[in-house]
């Protein structure tokens, strides 16, 4: 089964902005500045999978410094107080929040996985038979942050048919 993708880059950008407003930059001092560069590097990443009427993945990638900063903001602590567990937990939660909001925009009948966290660049994880269909790429205080959606090719082939 396949559905047309109903989540575009503007939707994704709005979800990311809400995460910034709620947790990472509630005072509006350090927004994510768009670079539109889907090839900007990352050092760590997290992802959730969505299966059902739409099948694919939502991936959150960033530098270690940006992940540490996110954890410090989430936990209201200093950067040097962030533990490796904090960093992983926050990375997973970021993918979960964006992925859950993506799923909420898809037709009923989708399942959201638990998040996976990899303390390695996004390029180290492959999503077989998928293609990147959307993404938000930016700098947060000079550090790269990437949020991307990868759709199963089985879905896109049916759409093309």
């Amino acid at each position, binding site marked *: 089964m396949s559905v047309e993708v109903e989540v575009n880059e503007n939707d994704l950008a709005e979800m990311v902005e809400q995460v910034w407003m709620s947790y990472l930059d509630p005072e509006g001092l350090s927004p994510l500045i768009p670079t539109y560069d889907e090839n900007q590097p990352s050092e760590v990443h997290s992802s959730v999978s969505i299966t059902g009427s739409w099948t694919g993945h939502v991936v959150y990638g960033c530098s270690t410094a940006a992940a540490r900063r996110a954890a410090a903001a*989430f936990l209201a602590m200093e950067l040097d107080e962030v533990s490796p567990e904090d960093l992983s937990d*926050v990375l997973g939660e970021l993918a979960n929040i964006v*992925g*859950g*909001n993506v*799923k909420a925009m*898809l037709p009923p009948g989708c399942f959201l996985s638990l998040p996976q966290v990899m303390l390695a660049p996004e390029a180290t994880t492959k999503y077989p038979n998928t293609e990147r269909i959307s993404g938000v790429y930016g700098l947060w205080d000079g550090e790269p942050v990437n949020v991307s959606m990868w759709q199963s090719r089985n879905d896109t082939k049916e759409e093309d048919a």
Partner: protein
Amino acid sequence: MKILIADDSRVMRQIVVRTLRQAGLGGHDIIEADNGRTGFDAVVEHRPELVLSDWNMPEMSGIDMLRALRAAGLDVPLAFVTSEGSPEMVARAEQAGAMFVITKPFTPESFRAVLEPVLA
């Protein structure tokens, strides 16, 4: 009031506690659980007056915990705090007996709007 917060993310449990405080709804007795199964056990043991639960958790999901609670005759008020706020999920939550669904990301304002009447 005794409140159980069930979420597999320790960070998110802390954020829920902090957001309650920022919303002017702090000062409650907080119990924590990291999945639906431990959440169920915590309800049986501690008899909280409110449960704030994530939906998507390992071992036992929030919705399965809610169904297990109701099946066991435990009618503690339960609200979901989840990233999955689709109409389909809200309908499933309400059907199972949840009070309401708070969608992540949330703010102190959104917490206050739905929880103030319950916690006041």
